[in-house]
């Protein structure tokens, strides 16, 4: 039986830590043909798409206890297979950016994305999360064009302490309004 390098994301996610950066750092040294197994409380489809861009094909399997095992292999193909339905994901629908659900809210990482993709991804996420659920945005710049749109949609914004070079925001819905 193959001994896989297993990276359990559940403690990070439970602790409110966005696992994306950690996963990218973890997989970066893996040579061509190498593999890693990620364990997560849901199928992290956006994260798998990021890994696909780094040359990893991944297959997701839901385990009997409800968590997901994602086998990622650096074959240069970047296939994302075993993709479940949105319901199986137990996370928000695909918004075009890595999204993970944690205890403090739904985290979205739009760093290194070119405008206007971050704004679109965040607004799509705003439209899909449940009432009462906060969104934590990880950005690399002040999204000044986003604020009027968020205010229009009834979202409040609160700055949080972030990593160096990061702008981290908590979005909280105060009222539900449609895009105009």
């Amino acid at each position: 039986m193959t001994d896989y390098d297993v990276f359990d994301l559940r403690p990070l996610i439970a602790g409110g830590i966005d696992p994306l950066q950690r996963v990218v750092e973890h997989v970066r040294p893996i040579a061509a043909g190498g593999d890693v197994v990620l364990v997560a409380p849901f199928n992290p489809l956006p994260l798998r798409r990021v890994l696909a861009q780094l040359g990893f094909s991944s297959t997701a399997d839901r385990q009997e206890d409800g968590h997901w095992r994602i086998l990622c292999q650096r074959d240069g193909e970047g296939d994302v297979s075993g993709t479940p339905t949105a319901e199986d994901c137990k996370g928000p629908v695909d918004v075009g950016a890595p999204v993970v659900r944690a205890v403090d809210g739904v985290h979205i990482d739009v760093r290194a994305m070119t405008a206007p993709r971050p704004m679109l991804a965040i607004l799509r996420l705003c439209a899909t999360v449940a009432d009462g659920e906060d969104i934590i945005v990880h950005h690399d710049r002040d999204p000044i064009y986003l604020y009027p749109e968020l205010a229009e949609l009834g979202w409040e914004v609160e700055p949080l302490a972030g990593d160096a070079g990061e702008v981290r925001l908590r979005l909280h819905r105060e009222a539900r309004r449609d895009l105009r």
Partner: protein
Amino acid sequence: MIFGDFMMGARSRLLGPSIPFRFFGAAVFFQFAAWVLIVVYADEMPGFQGGPGEMLAALHLVTLGVAVMTAMGAAFQILPAVTKRPLRSVVACKATFWLFFPGVLALTHGMGHQQLWAMEIGGGLVACGILLFAGLVADNLRQVGDMKVVTDHLWVALTCLLLLAVFGLSLVADFDYGILPDHLGVALAHAVVAAYGFMGMLALGFSFILIPLFGLSAPADERNGRRAAWVITGGLSLTVVALLVGNSPLLFAGAALGVAGLGLHLRVMAKVMKSRMREALGDSFVLIRLGWVLLPVSVGFGLTAAAGVAVDRTGPLFGFILVFGWLLSFLMGVLQRIMPFLASMHTVRPGAKPILVSSLTPARPLRVHMIGHLGAVLLVAVGLACDSGLAVRLGAFSGLIGSLGFATFFANMIWKLWRHHTKGRKC
């Protein structure tokens, strides 16, 4: 909404609201002034073939007063946020306005009253304002590595701006000293460089930022957008050379190339619109779409006039569709979207709710403006086609009412912005 110091990084690149809004306010004023002139001197518009007079003044009130003013205000506000680099000098931005605004007043006064001294002083001030603007924008664009599709358009626009200033000043000097061998050829080259080259490329370039922003759409196809820019530039170059040397086949080749580039640009924009998240786009996009439709139509009228077909009608129609149909429609559509958005952005501050964009966009005055503008474009075009001063006057009156609707919308927005800032200071 709580915005802490983290906004300050962006704020340091963002000019205070008084700078862009002084340009936008001037554009609103000049739109009104242009329609007043046409209402009063409507009988002079059918058959107008150029030369000093009220119609030339009205044309320049729109091209310089509305289009270039809007372009300056929008560029000073949006460019630093897009390029992530502040403009070199806020004082220079203000100086641009204080050179350009009186310059447009003096130039159009001189054109209207055929006073050469006013045209020369106004032209000089306008040229200085434009050169200062060009310098600030070029300095900001100089070290930008990304957003190639936008910067390509802006570089072409800036090059056209320099040509425009040279042609414009030569034309003014020619009235006095007779230095040009072919005044009409240079005047036409000046019109093409101004409307399609400078203002056109600026409008098309900023569309790659503004249209996805307004529609909340996927980013535009950069490769085809850049191809479109260079094909249009090729077409423009051929057309200008053809007009200067009086070569008809070259003129038609240039126009064909230009239209092909426009087609490519509009295809890219159609794709952007298709991918949008925002369903209801409002009246502003009726005007933006009208501008898109009338842009290639203006080329058609230009070619028909160049071919010598009913020049006394197709010539004025070319100028009117180009300036009032394409440029004014498109810019007014953009302005009514961008102004409330920027105003709302300027009200974001710690501990206070920003003014909502929707509360700054009252439907009624904007509906009055849209209907007035559409009526004006239709009636004036009919008046020019049928050689009817009455239809032109009715159309101009419709445009005048529309411009008052737009002025009401602008005044309401400034009032709310001022009240919000006053309240914020008291708190």
